[in-house]
């Protein structure tokens, strides 16, 4: 069964460093999302992406964040200068255009630890 994959599973970085989190959405999906979950808290929407541009973004997704689809398969989230409060689990999700339910399928997540 096709699934969303994410790399790395765990990333440790120093405050102020840039990180890139990578996702490979399900191959026939057209809409892509990033969410984050701070430990023990709820899942929060960051950004949605369609047709090579951002569709929507939340207040969390400030100028330090960017997303890109550099090729036909990868979808990346870049944090330019990490802060301690960026430590969280980051989930990528994708959905297809077809079907009313627009069910979003989530990847296994990348745990980001900022020291």
């Amino acid at each position, binding site marked *: 069964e096709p699934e969303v994959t994410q790399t790395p599973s765990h990333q440790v970085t120093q405050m102020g460093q840039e990180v890139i989190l990578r996702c490979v959405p399900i191959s026939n999906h057209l*809409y892509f999302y990033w969410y984050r979950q701070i430990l023990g808290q*709820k899942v929060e929407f960051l950004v*949605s992406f369609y047709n090579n541009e951002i569709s*929507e973004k939340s207040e969390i997704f400030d100028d330090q964040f960017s997303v890109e689809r550099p090729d036909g398969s990868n979808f990346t989230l870049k944090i330019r200068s990490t802060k301690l409060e960026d430590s969280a689990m980051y989930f990528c999700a994708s959905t297809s*255009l077809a079907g009313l*339910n*627009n*069910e979003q399928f989530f990847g296994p*997540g990348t745990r980001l630890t900022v020291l």
Partner: protein
Amino acid sequence: ELKVEQNPLFLSMQEGKNYTIYCNYSTTSDRLYWYRQDPGKSLESLFVLLSNGAVKQEGRLMASLDTKARLSTLHITAAVHDLSATYFCAAYYGGSQGNLIFGKGTKLSVKP
């Protein structure tokens, strides 16, 4: 702004008992999702509810949606230990490219 409230946030149950988790949302949303998350793991889709009165069942879990009351419920029947996890409801926000707004989650612990 769409807000999603879940209760209870913590639930400790005995095996064999029944219980219901409630999910209220603040503004109109035409789709409601339930996800399960095991510790340190990703979100597993359980149910997608698309219309008023929708009811879906899978094993010991049954989900329903009342769009007029802006309420969804997840009912657990005769709980077993394997159901221990955190359950999130999420309401759909936006147009065709919309995102999900999640509740805080209900951490369920089923004890023998």
